[in-house]
């Protein structure tokens, strides 16, 4: 119990971010027209690809002879990159079709 409390006070900045971001996330897309539901979902999908940063850190910290960690990390970076690049490109292709509209 005590170490959970210590953990909370050690991470209070992060907890504040969590709470604020929940409200920002809700506020920011609150008035989206249904036309944009799909592109918005796809865009959000690309943004959570930020998980790749964790994958890069895992990969970059792994000992050079720890092949299990290297292989798992390699796949983590690869899949994360697929998520990021694929996500943004697909979203752009969807939105491309809205151009030149008044």
């Amino acid at each position: 119990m005590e170490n959970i409390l210590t953990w909370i006070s050690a991470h209070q900045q992060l907890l504040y971010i969590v709470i604020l971001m929940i409200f920002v996330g809700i506020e920011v897309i609150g008035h989206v027209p249904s036309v944009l539901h799909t592109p918005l979902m796809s865009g959000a999908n690309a943004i959570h690809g930020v998980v790749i940063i964790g994958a890069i850190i895992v990969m970059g910290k792994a000992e050079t002879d720890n092949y299990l960690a290297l292989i798992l990390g390699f796949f983590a970076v690869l899949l994360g990159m697929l998520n990021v690049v694929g996500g943004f490109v697909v979203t752009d292709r969807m939105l491309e079709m809205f151009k030149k509209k008044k």
Partner: protein
Amino acid sequence: MTQSILTICYLLASITFILGLKMLSNPLTARKGNMVAAVGMTVAILGTIFLYRDEETGNNLHNYGWIFSALIIGAIVGTLAAKKVKMTAMPEMVSLFNGMGGACAALISIVEFLHISHQIHNGADAAYITAIRPTVMIILTGLIIGAVSFAGSMVAWGKLNGKVKDLSFTGQNILNLLVLATTIGLAVWLVVHPEQSWMMVVILVLALCYGIFFVLPIGGADMPVVISLLNSFTGVAAACGGFLYDNKVMLTGGILVGAAGTLLTILMCKAMNRSLKNVLIGSFGVSAQTASGSTIQGHHKEISVADSAMLMAYANKVMIVPGYGLAVAQAQHICHELEELLSQKGVTVKYAIHPVAGRMPGHMNVLLAEADVDYELLLEMEDANDEFKTCDVVLILGANDVVNPAAKTDPASPIYGMPILDVELAKTIIINKRSMKPGYAGIENELFFKPKSSMLFGDAKKVLQDLAGEIKTL
């Protein structure tokens, strides 16, 4: 110095994510918003590679060869896949990429857990075990959510491209709850006893199973909602990484998507006039079995292309109802051409867009926008329903469930309660379909047997080309 630059990189990226999402929710700025977020992501990734320094050891990252080869392969494959995919297959693609993100989060958790269990087995003391528990908790949370999101997205992907069929049986909800409860229970146990590292494998397998069981019974027509929900799951899994590495950009991005994704899921449900609970455990599949027993008997009449062309060319007002069939046939351009031909003849032509026509909310808008159809002509469901009674002809192009009157009249129908387009209010209804086969929800549509309705069989593109040809000669 380098650490401050990295902090600024992360700060910039976080701001671009928030701005990007904000811009994405407005049609005028959406495309730019996507770019802004992409630039932010690039800054964050490059910053991490070159500037990140381990707090404990003070070392920079290494294994650049591995990192860059993974990045390059991922970027090339991702771009090609996203560029090559057909407009109709977009939803599947989003689901697939979402699954990749979930898998990435799960893999990170696995590596970090292996690292910790290595430390423990190399004779760490009791104090280390006590201190590591909150970290283990975060790791396991990321592992479970990531694995559920990965497995669920793969099933959703399979369902959308028709490889996986709906599967439901009695007691499924209870089984699902049991699997989930066991997974969480074992995770709590592992947090208390982090030295029993083998348990991680059991938890991983259970979480994967839960992801599969969770999505399997949900009908294919509800997949967009499920994908949106899994999308927000992956966001939360990414945020777990933020706690793990004390990394604020992962936290911001992850929670932002988690919150926005949850709201978006609810908005999508609202567009279908259903609650999330109804979508998730209302089990499309179970009620479909009872409904499919009561097949509608009757005769449908067919109409020729020439007659259809005649009807439309001499109408005052024609309403086009596009559906998935239009998307599959890639007939959006020829559809726009037909609309222009009719307008030249003095016919008012409008489009009635059901919010969930096609395979995703907004699917039809995207498709018609591609063909340069004027925004003004696209009516949302409520407006369209007000206008149907003034329409002479309604032309339904490959839509089925969104015009099925059973949604209003038959409480046993799996789509009962979903708002539909009231095409019956119009004088004549022409329905273009490839065959009499039921639509995606797998149910019969009595609309096809109404006296007002006529069937115009054929591939949407071919039929529209013939129609346009006929109208030109009139």
